């Protein structure tokens, strides 16, 4: 799936995550999180898995996480990627 536009999903509310995606060369993931030390690795993993499932190989994905659990992170990343493609779930 090709990302052609910038897109956002989620929010900065507690237990949520704000995800920004934009077109890029290759896949990059940048994470800010209130639980970075405890869950940084798992968050990155969740983002990569979601991108992989949608076959996205070229995108810059930036997260501002407020303690979202894994299903929320995956949901918000999926939504942002689909919006960036110009498609809704």
């Amino acid at each position, binding site marked *: 799936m090709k990302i052609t536009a910038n897109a956002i999903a989620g929010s900065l509310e*507690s*237990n949520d995550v704000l995800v920004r995606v934009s077109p890029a060369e290759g896949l990059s993931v940048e994470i800010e999180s*209130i*639980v970075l*030390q*405890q*869950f*940084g*690795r*798992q968050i990155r993993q969740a983002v990569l898995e979601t991108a992989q499932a949608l076959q996205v190989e070229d995108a810059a994905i930036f997260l501002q996480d*407020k*303690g*979202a*659990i*894994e299903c929320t992170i995956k949901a918000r990343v999926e939504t942002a990627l689909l919006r960036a493609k110009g498609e809704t779930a």
Partner: protein
Amino acid sequence: MPKLVTSLSEAIQRCSLRDGMTLSFHHHLRNGDQVLNMVLAQAAQMGLKNLCIQASSLFDVHSPLIDHIASGVVTGIETGYMSGRLCQAISEGAMIKPVRFRSHGGRPDAIASGRVHIDVAFIGAPAADPMGNANGVDGTAACGSLGYAYSDAQYADKVVVVTDHVMPYPLVPASIQEIDVDFVALVDSIGDPKGIVSGTTRITRDPVGLVMAKYAAQVIAASGLLKDGFSFQTGAGGASLAVTQYLKPLMKQAKVTGSFGLGGITGYLVDMLEEGYFEKLLDVQCFDLRAVQSIRDNPRHQEISAARYASPSVKSAVVNSLDAVVLGATEIDTDFNVNVHTDSNGLIMGGSGGHSDTAAGAKLAIILAPLFRARLPLVVDKVLCVTTPGNTVDVLVTQRGVAVNPKRPDLADRLRGAGLPIYPIGELKEMAQRVTGVPELIRPNGRVVAEVEYRDGRIIDRIRSIQAP
């Protein structure tokens, strides 16, 4: 020589403040306090160095301490609780000498025993007379109980009452007595009333907090302690306060009249006193305006000193007559050890206060906390800091289940019989981790920035410096 002086600086001069002295402060003016900052500003101006601050608690308003530490005016801090910007500075290693944390009961014990020696005590008082009789109930900066100031007045070498409201002699009632006071310093303002007491403390509206609070009330009812003469203390957090609202109908149903409420007093406990749920309130600090008004006007609402409240070495302390206490936690481990000193990253953000004292004294110590906060599980394998040892903790109540300390099988049977959702604490940990995932282990390994002295005088844990951001 008259005791009353018209400036703080004069009082400080007369006390012959020197380098290396220990100055003490109570925290009844909470986040509206101006006394500590005024004293230290003066001391800094005088070029004093290496002072030790012995404060029952420190708040964000005391952040100027960060500068005093950097400039060498202050090189030692001993306290029962810390919040605000000072926490970050201490956790990042701003001080060479580790902070010494004590509990609210351990502090008067350390002072009375001589382990802590106070050179000058500065006692902020909303009202005082020219001979130094002082109370917390008169004046515009009224704060209610002055319980934490008693030991300072009794044992410090020199005692300065700092007030913005001098009343005619003799001031009645007098919490601090003239027999202990050297000087009375009149200043423009000892503190901002809005920061001293909240207008009202509020119980939580959060439905999760209410579910937890209801379970806690049911635990108390099922424990067998809810009978005539019942005594109770609860923290000032929203969910802990909500326990009072669920306790009242249970007490009414069982036709129970309680003997006393203890605290940390808020308007909710005052309501319980006035509505006949308790005969008396014993008050070591007032959290809101209603509590201040009540302690002033109601003879059945009485001020107690911190020593009487919780000292482990007095002939008897009130915590030892306490039936049930509801406390919070940032973390609790599978041995029921509780951490209220640091957050899950090891950053200092609190302290025992009365936590370890009440847990040790009460027949039923309940920890009330959500199973996870923003993806961080409450139950861990090992807490980052032991504030309150697990052998003094009886029950953990979360919104998804209750765990009983294995050393209380009698209690577990009662609670199970009452239909409460009882789980081994390890299972609560797994329940949380199924939702949050398993967190990476955080073990700050910088140098020691604080030592936690338990109420018996032993150091039970050390807090290490976290990475600077």
